[in-house]
Structures are given as C-alpha cells and as structure tokens.
C-alpha cells in the first residue's frame, strides 16, 4: 500500500467508519456521520443499515445526501415512515445499534451540548439545539461522538446538557432510565477517547498517526487521563481514501464539493 496524505477530517471519518460493524443498524445524522456511515457501507460493511431521522429506514444512497431529508434517501429506502414513527417505533425501543452525534461541547463524562454557549437566557452563542440527539444518546445501544478536539469543545462541564453521556459518572445512566450504553467512543481529530470502565470519565485510548499525548492533553479542557496501553490508529488506506473522496465529490448528487 502506497503512502498517501490525508486531512485530519478524513482521518476522523475513516476511524468513525471503522467503528461500524457490518449488519449494524446505524442512526445517521448529516455531515461527517453520514459520510462515515456511507464510507463504511461502501467498504467493509455492505449490509450496514442506515436509518435517518427523516424516517428513511435502510436508505442506500448512491451518493452522499446533503441533508437528512434528501429525496435519494426516500427513493432508496426499504421503507419510509413518519417522523413520529421513526422516533417512537424504531429509535426509542433500543432497536438501533449505533447512533452518531456531533457536539459543540462535550464534557469529561461525555455529556453533550448543542444548544447554547453561555447562559441560556443571555447566550454568547445560540446553537441549533437538540434535534434528535437527546433520544439518540438515550436509546441507541451505543453512541459514537465525533468532535474536533480543543479546550473550547472538550470542557470540564458543558454549559447545557442537551444529550446525556454518563451524567456525573458511573451508574447515572441506569438511574436516569437511559437504556443504551452511552458514548462508548469519542472520535476527535487527534485520537479516540473512551469512558473509563470504573468511573466513566473519558480517557484517551488511541492517537491518530503523528499526534502526541501532549497535543491531546493541551487540547482538552480538563486534566486528560491517558490509558496505559494507548495505541496508534492505522492511517487511512488508499482504498478508504479513494472511496471517501469519491463519495465526497458526489455530495447532493451534483458532482461538486459540499459547502
């Protein structure tokens, strides 16, 4: 395999794609999660089942959709259901294996903020809000978070808990009645964090090629724990990059790059 160069976004996407086992049911949000899921489906996981919150179950888009409601999703889905149904019958009972979430802030216990930076009533930045994230975080068997790592995004405590990770630590999910296992993996542009088995604090378990532990520590808003056996992820293969770039070139079915 020849050496190829790649961007940190590509690395994140490839690592996210690899997190998806074949035949898994994946609840897909737009942007990087959709790209990663479609990359997985086009490489090692051809029978991955994509569920979009627009109600398209088993969508098989030949190109990357630009929104979660692109017509190509409805046209290629096994079935299209209403939005109430996708949440009540398909997500809520825990049928979905993996849910993807992004974050404006994520804290040491994997709680996610996509609502507001600063005070809710006097916001510094008003963000889009919850969308489907709280229930994805609550009900998917497992959640994968994808976020660029910095002291602004990885914070000791989020300003607003839009979606619950591990609350204030071990046992909180059970106490809150959340049926899924929570954010088992946080994939950043520097590496991968996983909850500590004992207290659920996010811990660095893997670095992307060329990234140091110090870089990861410097980009984290709390004293970052590092696993004893921290490893280094395989760089993207030429095959992965080829498929990824071809996918990205076709976003929205237009042959052009995404805005």
């Amino acid at each position, binding site marked *: 395999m020849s050496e190829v160069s790649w961007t940190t976004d590509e690395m994140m996407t490839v690592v996210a794609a690899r997190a998806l086992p074949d035949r898994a049911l994946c609840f897909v949000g*737009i*942007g990087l999660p959709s790209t990663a899921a479609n990359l997985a489906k086009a490489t090692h996981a051809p029978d991955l089942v994509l569920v979009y*919150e*627009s*109600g*398209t179950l088993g969508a098989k888009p030949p190109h990357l959709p*630009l*929104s*979660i*409601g*692109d*017509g190509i*999703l*409805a*046209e290629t889905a096994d079935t*299209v259901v*209403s*939005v*109430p149904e996708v*949440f*009540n019958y398909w*997500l*809520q009972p825990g049928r979905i294996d993996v849910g993807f979430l992004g974050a404006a802030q994520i804290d040491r216990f994997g709680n996610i903020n996509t*609502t507001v930076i600063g005070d*809710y009533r006097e*916001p510094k*930045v*008003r963000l*889009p*809000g*919850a*969308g*489907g*994230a*709280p*229930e994805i975080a*609550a*009900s998917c068997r497992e959640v994968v978070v994808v976020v660029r790592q910095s002291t602004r995004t990885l914070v000791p405590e989020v300003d*607003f*808990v*839009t*979606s*619950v990770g591990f*609350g204030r630590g071990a046992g*909180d999910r059970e106490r*809150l*009645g*959340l*049926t899924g296992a929570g954010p088992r993996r946080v994939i950043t542009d520097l590496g991968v964090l996983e909850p500590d088995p004992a207290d659920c604090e996010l811990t660095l378990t893997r670095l992307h090629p060329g990234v140091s532990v110090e870089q990861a520590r410097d980009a984290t808003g709390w004293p970052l724990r590092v696993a004893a056996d921290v490893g280094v992820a395989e760089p993207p293969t030429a095959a992965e990059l080829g498929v990824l770039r071809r996918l990205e070139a076709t976003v*929205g079915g*237009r042959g052009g790059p*995404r*805005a």
Partner: protein
Amino acid sequence: MARITTLPDAVAELVRDGDVLAMEGFTHLIPFAAAHEVIRQRRHDLTAARMTPDLIYDQLIGAGCVRKLVFSWGGNPGVGSLHRFRDAVENGWPVPLELEEHSHAGMANRYVAGASGVPFAVLRGYSGTSLAGHSPGVATVTCPFTGEQLSAVPALCPDVTVVHAQRADRAGNVQLWGITGVQKEAVLAARRSLVTVEELVDELPPQPGAVVLPTWVVDAVAVVPGGAHPSYTQGFSKRDNGYYQAWDAISRDRAAFARWLDEQVYTGEVRA
C-alpha cells in the same frame, strides 16, 4: 370540506395575528410560498411552531412576524447557523424572541398527542438533560403498572397548520409522498389548516408511500406550483442547494436581509 382558493385569500382567512402557527415539512415539502404570503400580509405576534425552523422561519423571524418560537432544531441544514434566528435570540432584533425548546422526539409526540385528542404524550427522553429545566412543557409521569418514571410533553394544537403537498383532487383531498415527516399529525392537531399543492387533479391515483389528508380535515387548498422552493417536492422539483448556501450571506447582514425582503417578498416577486 376544503375550499379550493388562492394563497392570498387562504392566508388572509386562516392565519391570524397572535396565532400559534405551524408550517411543517421535514427538509422536503416546506411551505415557503405560504410563509412569504404570511410576511406580505404583515402577520405579527405569531407563536411559530416547527421541528426544524430552517430558512422558512429565519425569514418569518427576520421579518418580525414571530413573538415566540417552538422548535427542536434551528439550523441551516448542511450550511450552518440561522442568522436571523440568532440575531433575534442574541440581540432581540427585530423583536425579542421567546423560545420553547424540545427535542425532535418531544415535538413529534406533542403533535401526536394533539392529533389524538389527548392532552399529553409519554416518551423516554429529556431525562438528565437541561431541556427539562428550561422548558415548562416537560414533566414526569409514573407508569401506573410498573412504577417507572417517564417524560410527558403537552399536546401541541396549532391554531393553524400550513403544509405543502404534491397534489389535491377537486374535492380537496390531499396526497403527499416521499418524506412525509410530521405533516399528518400537524394538520390533524390544528384547529385550521391550509395546504398548498403543486397541482389539482381529477383523481388521486394510489401512490406508494403516500399520505392522504381527507378533505374533511383540511380547510383550504391553494394551487402554488413550486410552493416548496427552495426545498423540494418529490416528483416535481429538486432541492435548490444553492439558495440554502446563498442564504448564509443574505441572513448574516440585517441590511442584506432587508433588501431580500423588499425585492423577493414584499414585491411579490419571489421565485417560489
């Protein structure tokens, strides 16, 4: 029984100052043309409900029609922020905007409760989040059989719901397909409803995946070809992704937005 009428007449009759207004359509079939008519008729003090406010409510908010927003995700899909929404929330421009905020599952279930004629819906959700604390519309109920605690959200019953659909027959029965979102529930939950359609036909041929809204739950149907632009109507038009991207620059700037309003809405010259 739905009356077949024009968009200006339908909006004049059915959308009133101070109403709780829902304009639904999940990425697909967003009733933009009707929203522009609401702006042209200078409706104000609206409580605007919609799962994904999107450009359509960014425009209503920027035009000063909206006093309160009831929603679950307010962004420009695939592009970024809704700048008119943010300007209203962060700076109170052009008028302060009260927020009532839910998750998608919460909003969807609020419409379901409204459509079902019950005052609340039960779901797994909100537990442990800050949403519960910031929304008066989230409570806890205890299962009378298991003792388990679940979340409850109140029924959302708009005064008027507006949706766009592919077609209606001359009796006013409406047919829509593709991604049908929460439109059936939003119409059934509402006191009044208006549907804009691409075309009026003699018969509604059965169509895979179609939702039919019988004429007896619709107040008015207006024929507005392209009424969902810049969103799309499956079988009729493609999503105008360039419009969504161009909106970012227009909406960032109050003056640019005001020009857009003048040129594209108040003149009645809007493409949709």
